[in-house]
């Protein structure tokens, strides 16, 4: 038994499931312009053409191979990735059921069963750590995320340990490879109450398994974030180099200690509306104070300094950038995640290489990260191109601090950090409970504190998933909407999108449709009145 297991592992190590002649299609990356500015998140994914194979039932033996029970999956979407990349829409063409396609499905079934058998003995005792991956508790997690290499080696799992999941990931890679061998690309598997979404970003493969009602597009967006998170630690150049050199490299060695960044990013994806809206939120601050902070930051410049970012927790205070250099919202969220996840920068002045993948996947920037005061939430990030620049950056911070602490604006800033953001009551619409407003031109959004009804984490996540649904409807690939109104038992929701903004409102369930629509104008008026406090209206460059 043990010998067998070893054999299986050995063949696993040396071999790779990827077919030699695999389709290494170079996919055009999203056409999003590289700046913080408003970008339609939908566009990045919409250029794939879909080709559906319906009603082809697959039997996918699940993770803990020893397990007898099997999970039935009705796969009805293997998609074809054609070259017409910039096509506008995700065409949900039901291609009917040709015999050929049926055969394909059956072959997939056979292939994966073989692999499953091959590795059924492969599970070691290592799964005792953390969660038991064969347990019901593990299966019933709302959302799983797996990252693996193209050789089928586990790189990351959200729950459980990677070792325990090597055969599951092997099956995943087998599915990907099998479909690729047919010059096709697997996009998702839809099962009863469960969705499996694949994202192949050579040399990585990302798989999301969700029990929520999220759309494929939303899940792909999340997987893309995870991909960029990994790239930001290593650069794509390094990733490619590693896997070209050694296809079955265990990437966990290099990612050791960074798992919590990915874990936290996944939590953020569930709780932070900014990641949904492709925008960041600002600390509400009087524009006069913000201008002083910005200009102090602008004055503390250095030759290789590209971005100066001042954060208050998860909110942006100001951002100064080099002329003609823009920071993409994804990169900014990765920086937020890095700073927010780690207490490491509280020890002293941090100096770390960081790749901003939307800016450049090939190289590292070097970030000087430090808090303005030991217990403060205000964190300054100075991004330089030169890895020897630490003391220059440190001097920039000193200059900034000297300048800032002389002004009264610093006091105002510290006060603003302490206060809660603002309550929805200030808007003066009684039925309105909460809202999200994104200004497309600036890539910034604003929203009030969560009201009493949404105080718990579960309620907040629920509200955000409702917003996510609205977002999906507005940005539907084939039938985008301008308005969307929805009555529910617990709340009524309204969403609107124009060329200038996106708006999501949550009302009490007693509101009428007419008064909900009337509220939009009132809210827009209020936001216009407050915009110099809620947004950064005059971004600065060095």
């Amino acid at each position, binding site marked *: 038994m043990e010998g067998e297991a070893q054999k299986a592992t050995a063949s696993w190590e040396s071999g790779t499931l990827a077919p030699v002649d695999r389709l290494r299609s170079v996919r055009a990356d999203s056409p999003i312009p590289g700046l913080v500015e408003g970008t339609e998140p939908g566009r990045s994914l919409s250029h794939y053409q879909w080709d559906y194979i319906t009603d082809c039932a697959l039997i996918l033996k699940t993770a803990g191979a020893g397990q007898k029970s099997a999970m039935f999956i009705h796969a009805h979407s293997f998609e074809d990735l054609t070259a017409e990349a910039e096509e506008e829409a995700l065409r949900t063409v039901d291609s009917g059921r040709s015999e050929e396609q049926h055969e394909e499905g059956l072959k997939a079934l056979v292939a994966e069963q073989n692999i499953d058998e091959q590795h059924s003995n492969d599970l070691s005792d290592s799964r005792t750590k953390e969660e038991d991956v064969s347990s019901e508790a593990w299966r019933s997690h709302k959302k799983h995320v797996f990252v693996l290499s193209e050789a089928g080696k586990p790189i990351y799992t959200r729950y459980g340990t990677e070792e325990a999941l090597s055969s599951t990931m092997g099956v995943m890679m087998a599915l990907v490879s099998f479909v690729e061998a047919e010059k096709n690309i697997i996009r998702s598997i839809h099962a009863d109450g469960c969705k499996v979404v694949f994202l192949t970003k050579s040399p990585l493969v990302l798989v999301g398994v969700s029990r929520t009602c999220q759309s494929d597009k939303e899940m792909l967006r999340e997987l893309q974030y995870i991909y960029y998170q990994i790239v930001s*630690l*290593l650069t794509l150049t390094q990733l490619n180099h590693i896997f070209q050199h050694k296809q079955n490299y265990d990437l966990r*060695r*290099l*990612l*050791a*200690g*960074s798992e*919590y960044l990915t874990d936290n990013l996944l939590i953020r994806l569930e709780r932070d509306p900014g990641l949904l809206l492709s925008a960041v939120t600002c600390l509400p601050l009087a524009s006069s104070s913000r201008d002083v902070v910005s200009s102090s930051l602008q004055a503390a410049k250095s030759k290789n300094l590209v971005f100066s970012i001042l954060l208050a927790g998860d909110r942006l205070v100001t951002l100064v950038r080099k002329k003609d250099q823009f920071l993409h919202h994804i990169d900014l969220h990765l920086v937020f995640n*890095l700073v927010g996840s*780690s*207490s*490491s*920068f509280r*020890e*002293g*002045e*941090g*100096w*770390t*290489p960081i790749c901003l993948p939307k800016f450049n996947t090939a190289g590292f920037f070097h*970030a000087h990260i430090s808090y303005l005061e030991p217990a403060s939430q205000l964190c300054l990030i100075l991004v330089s191109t030169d*890895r*020897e620049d*630490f*003391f220059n950056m*440190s001097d920039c911070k000193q200059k900034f601090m000297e300048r800032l602490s002389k002004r009264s604006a610093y006091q105002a800033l510290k006060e603003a950090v302490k206060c809660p953001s603002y309550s929805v009551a200030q808007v003066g619409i009684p039925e309105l409970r909460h809202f999200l407003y994104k200004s497309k031109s600036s890539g910034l959004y604003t929203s009030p504190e969560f009201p009493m009804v949404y105080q718990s984490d579960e309620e907040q996540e629920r509200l955000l998933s409702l917003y996510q649904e609205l977002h999906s409807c507005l940005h539907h690939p084939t039938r985008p909407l301008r308005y969307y109104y929805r009555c529910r038992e617990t709340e009524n929701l309204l969403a609107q999108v124009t060329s200038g903004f996106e708006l999501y409102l949550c009302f009490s369930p007693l509101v009428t449709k007419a008064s909900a629509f009337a509220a939009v104008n009132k809210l827009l008026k209020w936001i216009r009145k407050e915009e110099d406090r809620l947004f950064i209206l005059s971004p600065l460059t060095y």
Partner: protein
Amino acid sequence: MTAMRVDVKVVMLGKESVGKTSLVERYVHHRFLVGPYQNTIGAAFVAKPIQVGEKVITLGIWDTAGSERYEAMSRIYYRGARAAIVCYDLTDSSSFQRARFWVKELQNCEEHCKIYLCGTKNDLIQEDRSLRKIDYHDAQDFAEEIGAQHFETSSKTGNNVDELFQKVAEDYNSTAFQYMTGKTKLAWLRLLQAACHIFTDSPGS
């Protein structure tokens, strides 16, 4: 990477989770943070003034990340360092192998850097002697072989931590003093020579 405001560049090296950050945290902030392990990202810099005799010396401490991911970057952290505190976990024999790696690296690239070998988590050993994986004498022998100082510390109790950094500062001070006296000696010699010249050249004698 040089700084004018520090006298001595000190770099912390060693395998991840041996407790480099805890050591710095204990020394600089006199505290030990209990909680889930958080690895250092990149490196953290902190400047700490220390009294040596009548002088105040500022240590510029670079607390580096132990993760292999940052290995390529490590050169910029130890370049020009006058002291390296190479840490290993007393309860983890693989961390001692890693310490040997760092020692070799330093010997090859920074020959003027003085090495301090530091076994961490001494408190665990005090509680349960069977946890010790690195024999004191083995480490001591290795330290002597490479001409390093050897310490065993506990960041949790603070045991030996101040002594370690004090020693770093004192060593720097005494080498700096030797260097100074060397220089003064040379100056004196030059003066003497010059005087001799004056005397030999003087036509009066």
